[in-house]
């Protein structure tokens, strides 16, 4: 075998390996996208069952208690308010569970879903400063990518909250770009250099960026100026039929 033939065989093996790796990456990507969306649908079914069954039952319980109190006010004087509070607590806990399993509005409008998510976070973490710039109109798109974008944002907020980075401030913008591209911009302003270094090196942030790229086949990049770090999540939206 001549030297040229040997080189040709090596090159051939090299290209076949590269093609195989790319094909394998794309197959894994498709499989995990399918898995991720399937899991979201299962959770949405669970949420639907909570809303259509358990919440209805709790409403029945409340109406029955209120009816008993109305018919025999003296008989339940001591315990009636406790029962009502218990049923209210049960109802709101179930409603929150349903909202966590299947984020509200995500199937209809990503801006509304983001707004709801941020309001929920701010209710829990009053110190976290978040400003938003969300469009009122949003083109109808398949929810598969919207759910991932929302999950990434939720996880980012959770990470910042868990690391107790409460002195940072966030600006969240959602922008429709040209050619069906959408962009979520998260601008994080840090109080000092130490916080910036600590946060930008968090492994969770790297995992989030990789997860976003893999599951949406989109892009994620970061720009840093002084004490501000801006994350850009960009994806191509799929239209509904």
């Amino acid at each position, binding site marked *: 075998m001549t030297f040229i033939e040997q080189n040709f065989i090596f090159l051939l093996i090299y290209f076949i390996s590269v093609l195989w790796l790319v094909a394998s990456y794309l197959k894994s990507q498709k499989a995990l996208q399918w898995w991720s969306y399937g899991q979201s649908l299962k959770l949405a079914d669970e949420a639907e069952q909570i809303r259509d069954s358990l919440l209805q039952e709790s409403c029945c319980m409340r*109406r029955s208690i209120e009816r008993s109190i109305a018919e025999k006010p003296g008989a339940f004087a001591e315990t009636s308010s406790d029962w009502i509070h218990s049923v209210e607590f049960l109802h709101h806990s179930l409603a929150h569970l349903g909202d966590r399993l299947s984020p*509200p509005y995500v199937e209809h409008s990503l801006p*509304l879903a983001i707004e709801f998510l941020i309001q929920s976070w701010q209710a829990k973490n009053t110190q976290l400063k978040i400003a938003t710039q969300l469009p009122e109109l949003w083109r109808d798109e398949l929810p598969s990518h919207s759910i991932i974008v929302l999950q990434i944002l939720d996880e980012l907020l959770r990470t910042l909250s868990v690391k107790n980075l409460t002195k940072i401030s966030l600006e969240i913008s959602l922008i429709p770009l040209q050619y069906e591209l959408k962009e979520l911009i998260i601008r994080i302003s840090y109080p000092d250099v130490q916080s910036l270094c600590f946060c930008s090196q968090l492994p969770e942030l790297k995992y989030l960026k990789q997860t976003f790229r893999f599951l949406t086949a989109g892009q994620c990049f970061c720009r840093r100026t002084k004490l501000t770090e801006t994350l850009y999540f960009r994806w191509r939206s799929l239209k509904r039929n």
Partner: protein
Amino acid sequence: MSHNLQQEKQKILVIDDHETVLYGTIYALKQQYPEADIRTTQTAQQLLEQLPSFKPDLVVMDLSIPDKVGEHDKSDVGIQLLKTLMQQYPTLNFTVQSSYIKALVRIKPTIDAHQGGFTVADKSLSTKEMLKRIDWALQGLTYTKDLKAMQSGLEIKQDWLTLLQLAFEEELQDQEIAKRMLVSARTVRHYWTKVQDVLEVYPDEGKRNIRIQTERRAREVGLID
């Protein structure tokens, strides 16, 4: 509650496929409106059959209902039914009693355009609060405050602004406003309920004048000078 409304014989149609909820709602309605003609249905198809002959003043409906007998309840069925009814009966009054009122955001433009009363009552509410929402719907009022997404951005239509300017800057009565805007008196009333809902001004038990409250609130948010 309005005294006149209690004296008139109301016709109310209630749709909910959960029997205990249905009985609970009917019981409360009968206590509040003892003279009322109250009928019930459990599917969207039954409601569509009953509606033309019964001609109710108010429909109290759940969103999670089955289309036909024997089918599973789905919120999509209730949403579609509500949309159809609001388009076919633009002045009919509705109270949506649901465990997931957020789903209503899907038909926001239809709700905005509806000329009849429209109130929402989450199923976590007490019977007293639910009855208050039902009474407001019977009065032709709009109440969507609990749907925060419906209020986002304080969306004010041009007609509503014109109404505020004519009422509070030119101090015109509704009849004059109707003439100036080239609309019916009913449409003017419809604009009032919508603008009051957006400004979160509702009748309260203290009997404060709702128009004065509307003017104050409109000035606070800068809709009028």
